[in-house]
């Protein structure tokens, strides 16, 4: 599902010095895997997610996601890739406040091809995350956990095979976070590939594989032994 090779990512600091965040990093993620990426704050976890998801194009190296080589896609093709191949879930949900839950889930449909069943599909996605009854609520009238579920439904709308999650439980209390982790487990069981950046012990415990971002590279921290029998391409 993911193949990244020799990724180098540098930021130019305020004083003009270059800061190398990713330094020759490589990553392989099998189809249908559930991977947690851990690492201290500022180690480059979000940076990694953004360039895997085609939100950031300023890096060296090769990234291939779901069979699509990201290098060389123009802006339009890259937007299309984000619309259909990946779903993002963020720590602070990033729902649009004056849209109802359903309309938030429908947001990706505005940037894809017209589809008759868009509304039905959005309702089904909300149903899937357990919010069918609250589809017309504005985000302010939803709890944190519910908001994150709406965000997950939005990420699922385009039918991606890969979810990229940046601290999805970071803004949730323990109990609510557990619910969301449970949802990721279910989605993974249904065949979705999940890559989640996390500080949360329970989240990484739920994953089959844990990688640590250290000095700009990923090192295997724990690999689930069942994986070899399950995720082969």
């Amino acid at each position, binding site marked *: 599902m993911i193949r990244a090779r020799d990724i180098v990512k540098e930021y130019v600091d305020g004083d003009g010095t270059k800061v190398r965040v990713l330094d020759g990093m490589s990553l392989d993620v099998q189809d249908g895997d559930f991977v947690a990426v851990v690492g201290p704050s500022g180690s480059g976890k*979000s*940076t990694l997610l*953004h*360039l895997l*998801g085609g*939100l*950031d194009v300023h890096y060296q190296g090769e990234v291939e996601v779901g069979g699509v080589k990201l290098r060389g896609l123009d*802006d*339009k093709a*890259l*937007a*299309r890739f*984000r*619309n*259909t191949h990946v779903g*993002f879930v*963020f*720590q*602070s949900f*990033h729902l*649009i406040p*004056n*849209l109802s839950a359903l309309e938030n889930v429908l*947001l*990706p*449909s*505005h*940037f*894809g*091809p*017209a589809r008759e069943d868009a509304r039905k599909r959005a309702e089904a996605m909300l149903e899937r995350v357990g919010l069918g009854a609250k589809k017309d609520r504005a985000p302010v009238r939803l709890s944190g956990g519910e908001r994150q579920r709406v965000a997950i439904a*939005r990420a699922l*709308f*385009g039918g991606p095979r890969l979810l990229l999650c*940046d601290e999805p439980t970071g803004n949730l209390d323990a109990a609510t976070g557990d619910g969301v982790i449970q949802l990721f487990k279910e989605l993974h069981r249904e065949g979705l590939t999940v890559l989640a950046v996390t500080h949360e012990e329970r989240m990484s415990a739920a994953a089959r594989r844990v990688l640590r971002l250290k000095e700009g590279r990923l090192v295997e921290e724990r690999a689930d032994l069942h994986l070899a029998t399950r995720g082969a391409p």
Partner: protein
Amino acid sequence: MRLDALSRLVRLSLARERKGAFFSAFGVAMGVGALVFFLGLGLGVGRVIREKIFPTDARLVDVVPSAVSLGSLLGGGKLDAATVERLAALPGVEAAWRKMNVRVPAVSRYDGAFFGTRLRMGMEVLAVGVEPGLVKDDVKLGEFRDMGEGQPIPALVSTRLLELYNKTFAPARKLPQLSANMIVGFVMPVEFNRSYVAASSGGPTRSAQAQVVGASDRAMLAGLTIPLETAVRINREAGVDADTFTGVTLVAKDPSQVPALIDAVKGMGLEIDDQERRMAENTGAAVALVTSALALLSILICILAAVNIAHALSASVRARAKEIGVMQAVGASRADVRGIVLAEAAVVGLAGGAAGTAAALLLAFGVNRLASTYLPSFPFKPDSFFSFPWPVVLGGVVLGLFAALAGAYFPARRAAATDPARTLAG
């Protein structure tokens, strides 16, 4: 990006930024409204000048003999039959209509019924003979030709004279208002070779009847316009010059040929009577100048409106950076983002342009109503002081759109350049 999706997103953000959008549109409406109003006023006043006060036909060139010139010494300055033939043969001339003044004085003494009242007056009369072709469209009664000795002379009066009579002469003397149609058929006595103010040149006085057959823009202002042959006959009978013409009106095939024609005529040692044309042009130029100044001011307002939109949109784009980042994350391209911002501005601009144009039309309507009720009647007072040809109306709306898009240019670029990785982190 699909149009239905775009319109949904635009509606969404306009609904949220209702206040800002309203003030942006209001600014555009002010500029566009002022521009449309002043242009309409300028065009309207210009039209009154062109059509009512100095109705000049762009194809007409009035040739007169040179007053004092070398030409007359060489025999070239006179308008005799041969010269007229040469004029008619100039390139670009479609028709040449001769004119001859009645060269003896004339008076009219009227004592009788006058459209419902009684009129007693005597006055000096000027008369000019013209060819029927020049005025044929304005003749409403009978034929415009010499009817012979003892028959009524067909006479045209000036439409402007009628206007002056109605607005200044008649009210002061409690005389009835007259329309062009009413006066057709009116007969008045005219005595040729007679004057109240000067000694007659001798010879017999001849009495005749003049019958008004219509009103014409091409008739002389202060006098009667009669058939050319009649003027020739009267002059001949009085023993004065009946061979040279007072003027020739050339009709050019096309207005663009007029300047060349004027040069050719001057080359023949003749002069052009362009008093009226020049007056019309001068007045028209003054109106155009004032209109341009006001239009410039209005365009300045439009520019300010565009700057205002740039300001408002910049702030809105900055405030929405996260939202734009989310859209990019779920599949918006940079072009999509730019399109959304531009479309928002386009809606604001179109709404402002349409509202401004509508307000200008409404205001013009109101001004016309007030003018017709509260302004006293004066000569050439028009029914409308405005003229709104469709390009002005459409142009107002388009200008609103254009100003808004111009204002949105940089904010849209900035929005498209949003770095989602930065706005979404954390």
